[in-house]
């Protein structure tokens, strides 16, 4: 199949893997920022193709996983308000909050609908004028432009019953936060592919310039990832870390200016609450004053019951896994108490979560 088969060619993969094995002469530690990369690495067995001395750790690049329990509790509380229709992307409905999940709220009668595009949420608002339709806006720079576009559309068409709870997060600030924490000594980062399509490669320059860590942006097909690993190994071996694009068919250094303009039109940069990391300044997007009428936070917060104390799942190491400190297998709950059927933490729920990937694609 055009554009997929080319990037799954087993002969080329073997050659690249061989090259990596030849060039890599010392143990190195890498982080794949994106949950999508973790899944691809596990699904195609890429760990088995490259030398065991290349350590690969997962990062915080799973939007569902990094959504803080407190934010999830707020979404669930909103769902229980009368006359509300919650619209959201898939996996988040299954993530346990402190006391419940959106899935459980739905079973209790809340109107919760899964959409694939924010525009469909706008459509639901148009068709249900007697209800308030709230879109739970999770995601990174990848989903932010489409959410921005939906708000612009809602304003243009004067749709008065559409709201967004913006839990959007930015990737470069959290990478900086992780590097500042210094809990894991990283030699290189597999940079996010889809996020970089939007923001380009320049926002990551600090990674090599200030921290001396290699960063190569990768696509999601097996050959993309192997090519990225090859470039990372080369940078690390030669002691010349830099920010490089190994996904040129998707990413331009300057990013997608149109998408960035949309984000700037609707959002303002603010602090965000990350699971496992906490509040990181300048790492989130809130709806700006011009579009405040669509801000679910402003419109409904006063209607919510007083916050109950946030309860994190006992024994769950999602936070450590998202910081790259632990691998799924390091968590005592992994595969025993916590399974995809009965997930304790979001990393086992999300199709981009590290635990789900390690569980689903166990190697033989």
């Amino acid at each position: 199949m055009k554009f997929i088969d080319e990037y799954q060619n087993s002969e080329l993969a073997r050659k690249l893997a061989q090259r990596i094995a030849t060039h890599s002469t010392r143990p190195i530690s890498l982080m794949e920022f994106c949950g999508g990369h973790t899944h691809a690495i596990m699904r195609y067995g890429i760990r088995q193709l490259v030398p065991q001395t290349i350590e690969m750790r997962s990062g915080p690049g799973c939007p569902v996983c990094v959504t803080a329990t407190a934010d999830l509790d707020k979404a669930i509380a909103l769902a229980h308000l009368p006359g509300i229709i919650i619209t959201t992307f898939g996996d988040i409905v299954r993530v346990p909050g402190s006391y419940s999940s959106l899935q459980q709220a739905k079973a209790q009668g809340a109107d919760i609908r899964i959409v694939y595009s924010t525009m469909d949420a706008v459509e639901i608002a148009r068709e249900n004028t007697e209800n308030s339709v709230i879109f739970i806006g999770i995601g990174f720079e990848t989903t932010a432009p489409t959410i921005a576009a939906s708000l612009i559309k809602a304003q243009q068409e004067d749709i008065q019953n559409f709201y967004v709870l913006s839990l959007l997060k930015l990737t470069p600030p959290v990478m900086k936060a992780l590097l500042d924490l210094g809990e894991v000594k990283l030699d290189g980062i597999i940079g996010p592919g889809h996020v970089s399509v939007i923001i380009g490669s320049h926002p990551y320059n600090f990674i090599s310039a200030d921290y001396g860590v290699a960063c190569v942006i990768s696509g999601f097909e097996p050959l993309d990832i192997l090519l990225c690993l090859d470039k990372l190994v080369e940078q690390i071996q030669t002691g010349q870390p830099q920010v490089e694009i190994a996904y040129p068919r998707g990413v331009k250094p300057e990013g997608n200016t149109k998408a960035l303009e949309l984000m700037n039109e609707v959002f303002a940069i603010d602090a965000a609450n990350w699971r496992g990391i906490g509040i990181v300044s300048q790492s989130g997007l809130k709806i700006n004053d011009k579009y405040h009428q669509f801000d679910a936070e402003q419109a409904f917060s006063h209607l919510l019951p007083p916050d109950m104390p946030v309860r994190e799942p006992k024994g769950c190491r999602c936070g450590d896994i998202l910081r790259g400190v632990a691998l799924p297998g390091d968590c005592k709950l992994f595969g025993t108490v916590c399974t995809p059927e009965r997930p304790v933490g979001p990393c086992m729920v999300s199709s981009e979560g590290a635990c789900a990937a390690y569980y689903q694609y166990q190697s033989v």
Partner: protein
Amino acid sequence: MKDAMTDTILLAHGSGGKLSHELVQSKFLPFLANPILDKLDDSAIFEASGRLAFTTDSYVVNPIFFPGGDIGKLAICGTVNDLAMSGAKPLYLSLSAIIEEGFPLSELEQIIKSIKAAAEEAEVNIVAGDTKVVNQKQADKLFINTSGIGIVPDGVDISGANAKAGDKVILSGTIGDHGIAIMSQREGLRFSVPVESDCAPLNKLVAQMLEASSRIHCLRDPTRGGLATTLSEFARQSNVGIVIQEDKIPIKEGVRAACELLGFDPIHVANEGKLVAIVEPSDADNVLAQMRQNHYGRDASIIGEVTNDYPGKVIMKTRLGPSRIVDMLSGELLPRIC
């Protein structure tokens, strides 16, 4: 009243009174007539001898019309296939419809016509039926239950527990078509994909396979949960390992692209017109050749084999070479975010 009567289903259609009779007489019987049903007695009475297979299934698909079929076709094919997967020749079906008040009669008629077409293709008769009408929002448009009875020919012994080391695993065609066709039509998920549901009755394909070999050990249609779930069931029931090769599994381009986009693994996506057979190795080529003669088996392929290693597990050799464990689907398939 007259207009409403001609347009939509009313609660009175389920009252058991005049309107109920009219509904059955005007909408169901003209399409589904056969000597057993036409008697309209409390039970269908028929002769049958030999080993009987009996199954039931309920159909609540949303949307009720989808590319390649509708809930009516699905309700016939699903139950016919459940019988066929036991090696049975399907004979008689019952059909029970739970209809939401306000459901358009024109859509009901369209669905009954496709029930008729599917039943004719599968050569089964609907011999018992029931309709109920519930208040709005107490059901989602239309739910259908079908039960089926078939006869298992002598010598046929098919069970998920029969797989043996060395057996070949045959898949009848491309996977994921039904799941992706449905997903493409769901509210909030609409996307354009040139994929139709594979919904089809497989009893004739199975009959041909049974003619070709008496040593078909397991048969199952990989519906919800997909190929991965069916193979995992075989591996657990038979306490064997099953090793499959990713590059032997036929997948349509549109399905593969949609799966990449949505973050699904096609081996977890539902099918409604496919089967997996586990066959004695010496008979596998013969069975495969027979399957390819049938329209519903034309893309059939041997995708792997049964082994004594890894008991209870399914192992997939990926396109790139490494192997990984394939697990059953857990929870619902939900699209990913980014």
